[in-house]
């Protein structure tokens, strides 16, 4: 549908609905906001290989450990580390000081290397696995420490129920795949049948309003209910089950963050590269690059107030395996981006990759807790007390000294 057509339709709708005093199309009430900083948390599911994303190319051992994976040269960053060639689109961001990394970090999870437990620990912010850690996520508990945090403040993007945002604090969520494909008449009738049911009425109102803000993915007339358009809808539903495109997630998140949302979270998959990593990791990195570039482009001036934090459940083995991939490891990397971060550098205490320096003789040794870096960003952005961060948000964490990630 072309732009003028949509504009016409929305005008028609606005008229039809104001005439009917529509409760469905009233704009949402947006919340008061205690900070103008924007935080985006991206969970990289599957165990991102930090050693391939940010390669210690200055160490001649690397090629020995990873003859096929490291065959193609990356972009040199600081004479020692180089960036995976599939992320070359992020070089300008690095040069502008808006992209940084923390290397050799991990959650407190050790030795078991299960994705599920690892992700539970990463998202819960806890230092152990167990049923109690599945109840709430660190980002949700953090909200409890901010006075006046309100629903519209935080957005979970995508259809999954992320543990990161689970908990007592209200959080909004929407999936870019969500649609409200009804004709104007259908919408009016829907409004009428929801009217006496406040729960349906409120959720329906938010759905239509959100779908409407999504441009190409939003409201759409379906007067041509022929076989083609049905087929398209079936495909859309099927697609919603596959990994959502990073760009769509990032664009939607940016749209929310440009208005009243202050924190957004989503996840990107495809990092479990046991096989032919030179090929499989490329796709995942492409998604990450696209997400970061889309966020920067879509956020416009707001990018300067933004910090994007990308975390994964664990790193991968230092040696490549028999099938040109890597297996579940321990230490890994964290990616930081945004105008509010002090980029252009690699943080962390690099342990080296010589045989005796490896964790359990196979993994990159984690020299620091990845939660510590997240905690310092939360402290810098929201002025939270250390005690709350170390007890409530990340139980058992010692924040130690400030690594100075923020400008």
């Amino acid at each position: 549908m072309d732009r003028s057509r949509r504009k016409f339709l929305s005008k028609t709708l606005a008229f039809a609905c104001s005439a009917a005093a529509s409760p469905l199309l009233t704009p949402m009430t947006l919340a008061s906001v205690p900070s103008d900083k924007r935080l985006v948390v991206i969970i990289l599911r599957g165990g991102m290989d930090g050693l391939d994303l940010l390669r210690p190319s200055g160490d001649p051992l690397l090629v020995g450990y990873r003859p096929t994976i490291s065959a193609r040269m990356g972009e040199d960053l600081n004479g020692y580390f180089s960036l995976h060639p599939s992320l070359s689109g992020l070089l300008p961001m690095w040069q502008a000081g808006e992209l940084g990394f923390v290397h050799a970090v991990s959650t407190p999870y050790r030795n078991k290397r299960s994705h599920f437990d690892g992700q539970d620990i990463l998202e819960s912010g806890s230092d152990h696995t167990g049923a109690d850690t599945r109840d709430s996520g660190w980002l949700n508990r953090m909200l409890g420490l901010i006075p006046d945090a309100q629903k519209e403040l935080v957005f979970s993007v995508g259809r999954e129920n992320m543990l990161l945002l689970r908990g007592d604090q209200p959080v909004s969520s929407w999936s870019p795949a969500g649609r409200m494909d009804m004709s104007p008449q259908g919408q009016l009738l829907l409004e009428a049948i929801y009217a006496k049911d406040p729960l349906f009425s409120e959720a329906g109102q938010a759905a239509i309003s959100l779908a409407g803000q999504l441009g190409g993915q939003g409201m759409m007339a379906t007067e041509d209910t022929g076989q083609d358009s049905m087929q398209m809808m079936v495909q859309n539903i099927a697609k919603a089950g596959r990994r959502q495109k990073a760009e769509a997630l990032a664009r939607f998140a940016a749209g929310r963050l440009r208005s009243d949302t202050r924190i957004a979270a989503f996840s990107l998959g495809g990092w479990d590269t046991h096989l032919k990593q030179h090929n499989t990791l490329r796709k995942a990195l492409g998604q990450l690059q696209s997400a970061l570039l889309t966020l920067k482009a879509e956020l416009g001036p707001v990018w300067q107030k933004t910090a994007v934090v990308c975390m994964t459940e664990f790193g991968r083995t230092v040696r490549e395996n028999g099938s040109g991939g890597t297996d579940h490891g321990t230490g890994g990397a964290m990616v930081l981006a945004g105008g509010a971060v002090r980029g252009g550098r690699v943080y962390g205490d690099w342990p080296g990759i010589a045989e005796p320096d490896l964790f359990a003789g196979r993994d990159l040794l984690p020299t620091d807790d990845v939660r510590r870096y997240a905690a310092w960003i939360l402290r810098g952005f929201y002025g939270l007390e250390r005690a709350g961060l170390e007890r409530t948000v990340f139980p058992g964490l010692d924040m130690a000294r400030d690594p100075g990630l923020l400008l």
Partner: protein
Amino acid sequence: MVQSFETLAAIRFGYGFKKGAPDMRDAGQVLAQLRGADVAMAAFPTPDYTERRGVYTHYREQVRRAKKAGKKADRALRLDVQRAKRARKHLVVRDIHARFARAILSDTGFRERLAIFWSDHFTVAPKGQWPQILYGDMMDAAIRPHLAGNFLDLLLAAALHPSMLIYLDQPKSYGPNSPRGLRSDKGLNENLARELLELHTMGVDGGYGQNDVRQLAELLTGIVTTDQGMEFHEKQAEPGPETVLGKPYGSDAEPRFSDIREFFYDISRHPDTARNLARKLAVHFVADDPPEDLVRAMQQAYLDSGAELTALYEAMLEHPASWGALGGKVKQPFGFVVSGLRALDVSRDTVANMGISGTRRMMSIPMAAMGQSMLRAPGPNGWPEEAEAWITPQGIAARLQWALVVSAVYGAELDPREFVQTSLRDAAGKTLILAAGAAENRNEGLALVLSSPEFNRR
């Protein structure tokens, strides 16, 4: 206005109206669905434990061969791996399909609802290949055969099913002073003991303490899983008696499985267990906050009968509080999808022949978009009951989207003005009846009915 008995029975205690399905005229008829053979399960059987194990070990074997061959793996070997992988995935989707098909096509909606209720009460969110292959066995071997029997049998079968044991880490629990524990320096894992008390029996408000959890965890040591299923290995069991809820189980002699069985017997008859089960059932079927006297009547009937589940159900079905006006509950996505396809009168052949892609496209993927991913309950406490957890902006958009699609695909012959009557009868409000007739095309008219609060509530 309170709806007719037939309507309440179909919607509150079943999966809604379906053309040709018999109306329930009294509580006795609803209860009678639980007598006799499990016809719905027989119509869509799934593989037994041995066959499941076979599919898994065959897959592992092919992967092992391929790994060994490395780059020298020939085409035939790669094909073997692919086939084994497909068989594994097919089995998991076949289980999911059976869940849907039985509920959609059966005339015993109450039995089907109970199967899902108990499957959620004993939630397992299987992680990994073997647990996912195994998962369907829990429904067909542990839950369905026992849902109308004594709770003791259901509890033994479900809480000690290998699926549950793996999910709650039981095989990793070692009696610290058992021969294996002493040798390996491994210790207790309390996960199963805690959930057994907190979720499966007494409930979070039950009268037990941390010490009971600990003692029960010790008592449960020795229960492990092997290729054959659940087994009791004395060498992993903590020696000596354990005192749970004030009663000692076992002796200084060799640990025995019968000690654990004795505890299961006692806990199945505990008043807190009766209360927890009664309340949970009432919350699931009647209201998010059910009336106290309904819960009490159910609790009493359960205790008086010696943990007979049909007595518990009967007390619910015969209590007047269970027959108030509809609307206290929202259908979870599974129930919404099932009742939608029943209302549209999708044919037996269509349902039976949906296959892997049809099951995913028409049912499990849209359900995930509505917030309920098959096999992925958020935790051992299962899916939330509250209406607010489901009627969210994306939840409602996903329901509407699905309604538009299935109305177009399956409802081409239906007239919305009739559909609102056949699918809801006297549960349809005046506005909905008018709206169904005022839609600008059939597809939207049907979708409006399926998206209505009347259709989504029960």
